[in-house]
């Protein structure tokens, strides 16, 4: 019966699909058992593997088999991280990794005081996920180098200039005190002046001028009173900025020692997947036979 035949065909088809899945999983299992990390990576993303490592143009159809292991990515990542971090340690000696939860890694830049949390390491995709803000600071800081400047140079200069002005205001206190005494004398003189009707306008103007000057001096006195507090606050701001510059400087030094310049560093990051998997080719002890 046609119906029975259809049923049988359906069973065959399903058996085949299940067999494919079993095959995928058992290949994966064998790869793990043989410590064949390369094979595991290939199974995780065949399309990318053939494009970037094999450099074949053939468009392999996406078979979705990799989705079978989606929910054990943390475990796979934890497993694969061992060799990957070992490899990264040679090429990026300045990165430190912390597995904050199974299979998830934070990247720290350097081992200096208050080093920055620089992003995450995506083990499954062999990729750095750098923190955008931090990365941009580093990029800017490299760019500013040609002008012989650090990232915060101009900010620090502006704050320093402000502090200097405040200090001048404090230093000028005795001078202002003298001026005030003189102005008060003038004010006394002014009010003692015979105020002939034709002179009264002039005396009034003079009086107002003196009062204006006194008011201005009083304003400056008040600013001077607050100056120490503001200078202290500025010192704290400068400290934060200098600290950031110091950290960025260490980061730049590290990158230069390992890659000569920022462009080479970025190029290495871009080809990390292919470089790493190529390094694994033929290296693993019991390589599982490639199935095509």
């Amino acid at each position, binding site marked *: 019966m046609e119906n029975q035949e259809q049923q049988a065909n359906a069973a065959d088809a399903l058996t085949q699909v299940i067999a494919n899945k079993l095959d995928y999983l058992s290949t994966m299992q064998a790869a793990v058992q043989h410590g064949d990390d390369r094979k595991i990576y290939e199974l995780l993303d065949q399309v990318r593997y053939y494009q970037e490592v094999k450099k074949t143009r053939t468009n392999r159809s996406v078979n979705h088999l990799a989705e079978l292991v989606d929910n054990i990515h943390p475990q796979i990542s934890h497993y694969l991280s061992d060799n990957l971090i070992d490899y990264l340690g040679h090429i990026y000696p300045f990165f430190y990794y912390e597995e904050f939860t199974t299979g998830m890694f934070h990247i720290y830049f350097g081992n200096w*005081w208050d080093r920055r949390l620089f992003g995450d390491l995506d083990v499954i995709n062999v990729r750095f996920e750098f923190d955008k803000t931090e990365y941009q600071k580093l990029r800017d800081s490299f760019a500013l180098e040609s002008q012989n400047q650090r990232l915060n140079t101009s900010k620090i200069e502006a704050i320093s200039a402000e502090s200097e002005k405040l200090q001048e205001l404090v230093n000028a206190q005795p001078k202002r005190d003298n001026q005030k005494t003189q102005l008060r004398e003038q004010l006394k003189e002014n009010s003692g002046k015979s105020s002939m009707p034709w002179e009264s306008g002039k005396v009034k103007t003079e009086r107002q001028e003196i009062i204006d000057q006194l008011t201005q001096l009083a304003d400056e006195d008040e600013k001077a009173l607050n100056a120490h507090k503001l200078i202290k606050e500025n010192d704290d701001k400068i400290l934060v900025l200098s600290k950031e510059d110091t950290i960025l400087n260490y980061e730049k030094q590290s990158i230069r020692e390992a890659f000569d310049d920022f462009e080479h560093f970025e190029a290495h990051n871009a080809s990390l997947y292919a470089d790493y998997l190529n390094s694994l080719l033929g290296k693993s002890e019991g390589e599982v036979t490639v199935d095509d």
Partner: protein
Amino acid sequence: MINENDPSTLTTSGRLLNYNEAIKDGLQTGLTFTKLMDQLIRTTDPNELVDAATQLADFKLDSDYVTFPHQYSNADYYLLFMSRMLELHDQGSQVILQSRDHREELTQQLTSLGDRGTFNFRVETSENGGVFYRERATGQSLFYLNLERKMFRFNSHALTQLFIIDLHDTVPAETVKTSVQVLLDFARYLKEDYGYSVDFNILDAANRQNYAVRAADLPAGIVDRLFVAAAKNDYMLTNGVNGNGAEIALDKGVVVDIFNNQLEGQPEWVLTVHDDEQKISWFDVLLQYPFMRDWYLENLSDLEIKSDPLIFG
């Protein structure tokens, strides 16, 4: 009824006998004193020396009936004791004892420091007892000594003020080091030979020494400042090994750590100085590294190493 303690009840000869006894007592005290002085000045036995000094430290020479117009103060016996102790360890030439003309009063100079410092002891009048070793011009009390309680405490504040600040511009670091070594040796003899309890404080070169800083909960900005200053001087402040502080590797294997010594509860920030030979103290670091010195002095109100609070409270 005859009461020996009430002169009005005594006969004339009884009174004279009493008077005579009191004078004999007073003279005997004087004789005891001269014996102790002989012992303090002449003995070559360190035990006898300490014994004489301990007895003289609170010796009352005068009695009701016999008084001595020419007397050194008790504090002066300490100076004598110190000189003799160094002499018995072949370091007698490192201090100079000076007596004033026409006055019974001693002062001391450290030979290497010369007239940049004049020292004496000041008797502590509270019931704690003991003496402070003091630089006369600045009044800085460098250490506290109590012979009776076998206690010796260095004072970080005074050592810093005198040697790291006041004498910094005029006396070379090497000279300061040699001078302070004399005080250090004196304390060491008391500890090693007589089991004194000694706090060497910032002079302690042992690696295990934790120098507690004044601000138990150190503001983070202070470590940041060292980070920036170190970078300017081509040193790098790194994260500490234990993860709750910072570390800086100086020259010749000297490593300074600054960290919170308490993993939970009340924080207690401390400094440590490590070197393989255990010869370098925090004081030495301050003498040798201008940027460390600047950092310490600029943040002294938070960073000053604590001294025994019961003595220098």
